[in-house]
C-alpha cells in the first residue's frame, strides 16, 4: 500500500516536471488535475495543488443553466418555422414570376395579332374613323351641307360678276355701231 502510494507520487513528480517543461500530454495533465483534486497531496507538492484544483474547478463550472439551453433550443425550433414560411414565400415568388412572364407574352401576342387582323379585314381608309354607320352618315351630311353653303356663297359672287359681263357686252355693241 505504502509502496504503491510512493510509486504514484514518483509518477506525479515526473508528470509535474514534464508539465513545467511543456512536454506533458493532455491525458497526463488530466491525471495531474485528478490527483491534486482528489488525493492526499504530500507537503513537497502542496504548493502546486491549488493550481490544478483551480483548473479543475474552472473547467467543470456550469455557467449556463438548463434555462439557457431551453432558450437556445426554442430559438432554433422557432427559426425553423420561420425558415419554412420563408421557403413558402420563395415558392410563391417563383410562381408569381412565371405567371407574370406568361401574362406579358399572352398580352403581346394578343396585341400583335389584333393589329394584323384589323389591317387585313378592314379597309385602310376607314381605319380610325367613326364605326357607327348612322353617325358616319350624319357626319358626311354635315360636311356636304357645309361644302354646298360655301359653293352657294361663291355662286352669289359669280352672279355679281355676270352683271359686269352684261355691261361689257353692251359696251362692245355700241363700239361696233360707232365703228360702222
Amino acid at each position, binding site marked *: 500500500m505504502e509502496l504503491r502510494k510512493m510509486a504514484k507520487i514518483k509518477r506525479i513528480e515526473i508528470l509535474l516536471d514534464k508539465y*513545467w517543461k511543456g512536454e506533458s500530454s493532455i491525458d497526463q495533465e488530466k491525471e495531474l488535475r485528478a490527483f491534486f483534486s482528489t488525493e492526499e497531496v504530500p507537503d513537497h507538492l502542496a504548493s502546486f495543488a*491549488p493550481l490544478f484544483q483551480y483548473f479543475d474547478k474552472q473547467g467543470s463550472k456550469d455557467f449556463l443553466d438548463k434555462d439557457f439551453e431551453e*432558450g437556445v433550443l426554442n430559438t432554433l*425550433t422557432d427559426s425553423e418555422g420561420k425558415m419554412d414560411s420563408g421557403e413558402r414565400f420563395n415558392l410563391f415568388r417563383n410562381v408569381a414570376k412565371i405567371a407574370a412572364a406568361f401574362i406579358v407574352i399572352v398580352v403581346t401576342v394578343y396585341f400583335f395579332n389584333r393589329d394584323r387582323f384589323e389591317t387585313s379585314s378592314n379597309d385602310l381608309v376607314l381605319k380610325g374613323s367613326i364605326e357607327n354607320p348612322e353617325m358616319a352618315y350624319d357626319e358626311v351630311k354635315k360636311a356636304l351641307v357645309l361644302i354646298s353653303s360655301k359653293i352657294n356663297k361663291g355662286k352669289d359672287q359669280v352672279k355679281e360678276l355676270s352683271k359686269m359681263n352684261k355691261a361689257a357686252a353692251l359696251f362692245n355693241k355700241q363700239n361696233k355701231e360707232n365703228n360702222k
Partner: protein
Amino acid sequence: MSRLADTMTLEDFKELVLPVKNKLFRFALSFLKNEEEAKDVVQEVLIKIWHKGKEISFYNNIEAWCMTMVKNQSLDKLKSKHFNLPGVDDHKEIATYAPDPHHYSELSDTMKLIENTIETLPEKQKYVIRLRDIEGFSYQEISEILELDLNQVKVNLFRARKKIKHELLNAEAYGT
C-alpha cells in the same frame, strides 16, 4: 463526426454542440469580461452553428470550430464597443471587470493569486494557457482557434506556466 453525413439533426446538436456551451461561455467571457454579453455571444454562435449544420461535416473538430466562432464574434463585439465608446482602451476595460463576488469567494487565496496571474499575462499566453489547462484542447486545436502556429502555441504555454510557477513558489517562500 463522419456520421454527420450532411445535415445536423436536433439530436446531433444536443449531443455534440450543446455540451460545449460552458467552454464557449468561458472563452467569450475571457474576451468580453461581461457575463451577459458572453451569454449573448454563445447564444448567437450556437444558433449560427445550427444553421450552418450542413457545413459541419467538413470540420473534423466541432469544438475547435465553435471556439473559433466565439472568438470572432467576441472580437467583433469588442470592436463595435470600441467604436461606440471612443477613447476606452484595453487597460480600462480590464480594470472595470469585476468578477461575480460569489465566484470569487469560492476561491482560496492561492487560487485568487493564480487567477490574477493568468489575467495579467500577455494576451497570447493568457488564451493559450486557458485553452490548454482549463479547456483541455490539443496544441493543434489551439493553433487553429487562435490562428497561431504550433511553435507559438508551445512557446506561449511554456512562458505562461513558468510565470505561474514562479508566482506560486514566491508566494510559498514569502507567505501569502
